[in-house]
């Protein structure tokens, strides 16, 4: 029962997904002519569609495979990630969404530049956005390469080029409309697939959550300790800091903020955030069942382990093994194809956001576009450049531990973008100097302290001890940025 061999059902499901999404891209390409259609899909998406697309941005392969694997390994600590991701939606809804939607046009820099001087703030927000997108993209590309290699037996480099080529195709030809529909299709498939695995897993325990958790406690080497948040009590500062990064990072992610402009009005934007919160909440509840269910059904089964006792294909394959255990190779094939589709959809959204930053924020608004056609040409060129860079970085970082990169992206989003955006939208006293220098302080401190922290300094650069002991640094850098923006604004205003 070696279920890490190439699964023909995975390939079939995946090819069907690729064909359907390429069809959607062709349809979207015929409807996307103006810059507005390319950046926002024409601004006519429904609340449900946009909610699914926004939720899809957070239901990544890392969330499905990584969080379930973390729950299987350490238990309850994995749940904190899911809860943290969902807690970001009420914050973005109450603090950012309405005013951003009323002030902005295509990107969040549009809203910022109505409050402070356009040139410096667009340069800062473009730089910050591109850094956040780059870290997110590298993590997704490396994950994609490893996953495709494992599931379909493709060579790593070929897999990376294949993923990069498809994402460039979606964005260049279909813009936001194609990218959103790819995200919607994937989100529906992912929710259905996750519900199927969670439901079949619960069925094995007579639909009793108590029995499922009781079995997990009996089997896991840490027994009842897996039901308590061990990492939080071991390192409370890092635990709370992670909570801050997850809760406020969402409000500073450029590819999420961009989606508020794809709907016709503020009311629809609000309802779409509610849908995103609902779908993400339900998704993570199912991931918890999958993670704890895998302890009961995968952990004790020697067929899923190598001779040395390690899980076949690595710890992140636990969801695939569980799918095989409860639904055979057909369900495993379906889930594998969904996992890959998930990565494709997320990287397409990131690429679109990065290309929009370059063509709209930097080129059209700062250099000055000759025409709309010219701006779209720049956007397509930027997509090609970002796609090429993503492929190159995916290959360069192949053997690196990139797990910290999503955390780093969220830390920078929470520490640099969120404070600048929040104060620009809600505080009359902000000045250009305050927004710019405060934002730079947030960006540099989040980046620098992550570099000196345990994830990079010890686990990636192999130093014996971290210079900065907490990871992520958001608990320090988010307040620091707020204080810096307010202090510099007050000082420059007085002057």
């Amino acid at each position, binding site marked *: 029962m070696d279920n890490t061999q190439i699964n023909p059902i995975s390939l079939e499901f995946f090819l069907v997904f690729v064909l359907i999404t390429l069809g959607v891209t062709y349809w979207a390409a015929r409807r996307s002519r103006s810059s507005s259609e390319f950046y926002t899909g024409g601004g006519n998406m429904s609340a449900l569609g946009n909610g699914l697309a926004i939720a899809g941005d957070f239901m990544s392969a890392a969330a499905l495979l990584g969080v379930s694997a973390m729950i299987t390994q350490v238990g*309850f600590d994995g*749940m*904190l990630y899911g*809860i943290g991701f*969902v*807690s970001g*939606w*009420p*914050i973005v*809804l*109450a*603090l950012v969404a*309405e*005013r951003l939607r*009323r*002030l902005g046009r295509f990107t969040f820099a549009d*809203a910022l530049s*109505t*409050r*402070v*001087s356009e040139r*410096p703030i667009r340069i800062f927000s473009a730089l910050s956005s591109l850094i956040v997108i780059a870290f997110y993209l590298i993590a997704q590309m490396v994950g994609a390469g490893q996953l495709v290699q494992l599931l379909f037996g493709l060579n790593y480099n070929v897999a990376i080029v294949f993923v990069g080529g498809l994402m460039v195709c979606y964005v260049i030809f279909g813009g936001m409309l194609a990218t959103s529909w790819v995200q919607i299709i994937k989100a529906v498939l992912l929710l259905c697939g996750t519900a199927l695995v969670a439901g079949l897993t619960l069925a094995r325990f007579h639909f*009793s*959550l*108590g*029995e499922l*958790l*009781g079995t997990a406690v009996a089997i896991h080497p840490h027994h009842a300790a897996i*039901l*308590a*948040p*061990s990492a*939080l*009590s071991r390192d*409370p500062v890092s*635990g*709370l800091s992670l*909570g801050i990064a997850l*809760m406020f990072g969402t409000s500073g992610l450029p590819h999420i903020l961009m989606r508020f402009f794809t709907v016709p009005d*503020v*009311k629809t934007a*609000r*309802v779409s*955030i*509610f849908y995103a*919160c*609902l779908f993400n*909440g339900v998704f*993570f*509840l199912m991931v*918890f069942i999958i993670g704890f269910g895998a302890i009961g059904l995968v952990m004790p089964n020697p067929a899923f382990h190598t001779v040395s006792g390690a899980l076949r294909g690595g710890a992140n394959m636990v969801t695939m093994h569980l799918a095989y255990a409860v639904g055979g190779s057909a369900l495993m094939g379906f889930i594998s194809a969904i996992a890959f589709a998930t990565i494709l959809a997320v990287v397409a959204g990131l690429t679109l956001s990065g290309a929009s930053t370059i063509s709209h924020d930097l080129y059209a608004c700062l250099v000055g576009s000759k025409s709309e056609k010219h701006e779209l040409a720049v956007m397509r060129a930027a997509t090609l450049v970002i796609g090429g860079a993503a492929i190159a970085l995916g290959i360069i970082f192949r053997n690196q531990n990139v797990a910290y990169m999503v955390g780093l992206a969220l830390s920078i989003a929470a520490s640099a973008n969120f404070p600048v955006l929040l104060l620009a*939208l*809600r505080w*009359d006293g*902000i*000045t*250009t100097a305050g927004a*710019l220098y405060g934002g730079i302080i947030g960006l540099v401190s989040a980046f620098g302290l992550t570099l000196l922290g345990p994830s990079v300094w010890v686990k990636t650069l192999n130093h014996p001890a971290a210079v900065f002991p907490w990871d992520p640094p958001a608990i320090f850098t988010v307040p620091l940025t707020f204080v810096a923006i307010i202090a510099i604004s007050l000082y*420059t*205003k007085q002057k």
Partner: protein
Amino acid sequence: MLDYPRESKQAPQKAGKGPDIILVSSVSVAYYGFLFAGILVPAMLASPAVLGIPWSFLLGASLLIFLIVSTGIYVLVSNAQDGHHDG
């Protein structure tokens, strides 16, 4: 290059600030309360609450449901206020 705030006014907000404050404060209290419970009384969270389900799972799932429901109520209230202003 660096100047004083531009003349443009703050973004208009039709919905009142009350729902914003209630949502952010209630979500923060619930979320960080949950994290502090994990720091201060982890053993209690691991103990069974009902039908063999531990407090940790029960509170975690309840928190997720609270986040969804509070977001839904906020949207209903804010959109109703918007409609009132539009009307």
